């Protein structure tokens, strides 16, 4: 798991913890658990929501750590401005990743689905929650192998990324088609910028 601070946000939103899991075997039950937790009532519901209070992101659609961090930044920024389009800062990260404004489409594509095998898990919180606690809670929710973020490049499904961002016919991609590494860098550049400017994409 890696942790960093967002230096200029209010304390309760200043710590970001993120981990990458591969070989995830329980994504279908995890998804059902999330859906059930969102509507559970009473103190048991509160406890359950607390246990799954993370952003579960489809790792094959993340092109780089910068991509992930840009979405986290814009989601937290929206939270500080009272401008969330979704219910929590964690669902807002998923919304920020998706190029369109359709929330259920964002969850379907960029959230955990029954077939997900690699997940990025993110928690935005205050310094009161220790790194160890967050890591323990994450490990308790996801059944998989935790790997360093350097593995992310091997997981990215570039064809799906290009499709969702409608990059197939773009001049930038055509120019780079002979050099796969270069093409990936171009796609990442466009995707990161799209996420950063989503609030004004109009």
């Amino acid at each position, binding site marked *: 798991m890696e942790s960093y601070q967002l230096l*200029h946000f209010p304390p309760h939103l200043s710590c970001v913890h993120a981990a990458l899991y591969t070989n995830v075997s329980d994504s279908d039950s995890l998804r059902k658990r999330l859906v059930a937790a969102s509507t559970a009532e009473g103190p048991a519901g509160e406890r359950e929501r607390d246990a799954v209070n993370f952003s579960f992101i489809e790792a094959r659609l993340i092109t780089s750590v910068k991509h992930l961090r840009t979405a986290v930044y814009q989601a937290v920024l929206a939270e500080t401005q009272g401008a969330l389009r979704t219910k929590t800062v964690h669902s807002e990260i998923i919304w920020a990743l998706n190029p369109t404004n359709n929330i259920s489409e964002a969850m379907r594509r960029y959230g955990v689905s029954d077939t997900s095998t690699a997940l990025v898990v993110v928690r935005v919180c205050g310094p009161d929650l220790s790194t160890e606690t967050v890591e323990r809670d994450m490990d308790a929710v996801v059944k998989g192998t935790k790997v360093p973020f350097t593995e992310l490049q091997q997981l990215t499904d570039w064809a799906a990324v290009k499709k969702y961002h409608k990059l197939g016919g773009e001049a930038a991609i055509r120019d780079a088609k002979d050099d796969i590494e270069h093409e990936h860098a171009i796609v990442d550049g466009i995707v990161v910028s799209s996420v*950063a400017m989503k609030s004004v994409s109009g």
Partner: protein
Amino acid sequence: MTSASLDLILASTLISQGAEAKVYKAKLSSDPSDSEILLKHRFRKGYRHPTLDGSLTRARVAGEARALLKCLRAGVNVPGVRMVDAAEGVLGIEWIHGQSVRKLLPGGAGEDEDASGDSEPEAADALREYDIPVDALMQLIGQEIAKMHLADVIHGDLTTSNMMLRHPSSFKSRHPTLSTELVLIDFGLSFHSSLVEDKAVDLYVLERAFSSTHPDSEPLFASVLRAYEQRMGKDWAAIGRRLEDVRMRGRKRSMVG
């Protein structure tokens, strides 16, 4: 200060200030591996009604970000977008390590000093660091503007100050012979247009900037135009003809008649 973006600005280093915006160097997170970004803050204008000020600022931040994304998609070298806070008028973009073309060409280095005598050898030295002949640099300029115009983006303020060369040490060049890359910056006055007139005026503005900044600029700009013409293909004929017209009458079209 209650806004996160204003706190971010307070912690950043001021690079320069214009009438419309202040520019800072900033970091978004505590992680040392996170690269620095450039923040452009369109600060509040006290001389405008607050409501009008807010909507103008929002529209301009949005416009600049959209133009950058459009250019990225079209394969034009521009800085990537890193964060947007339209409500506060803050746009965060990729930090380009390098130097403006203005300072790399003869005449552009001594911007504020009057010791113009030694500026030419300095510019030549600087260009050597980037390992690019002047003519190759002019071709890059022509190609990049052509790519931008083919995407129907009009820059609106083309000058040699609004173009940068990436420092060879800051990135991995894909070019077979060049170790640098030309990046167009400052899309604050840009807009979308497919009109021949707007493209011709864009070129004319650059031509005037060349001749007012760099001595003996005619062969330089001619070289820019040749590369532009080559890249534009069939679209060039109409733009070239219109550029002749614009040279005769100036940037503004006459309102008479």
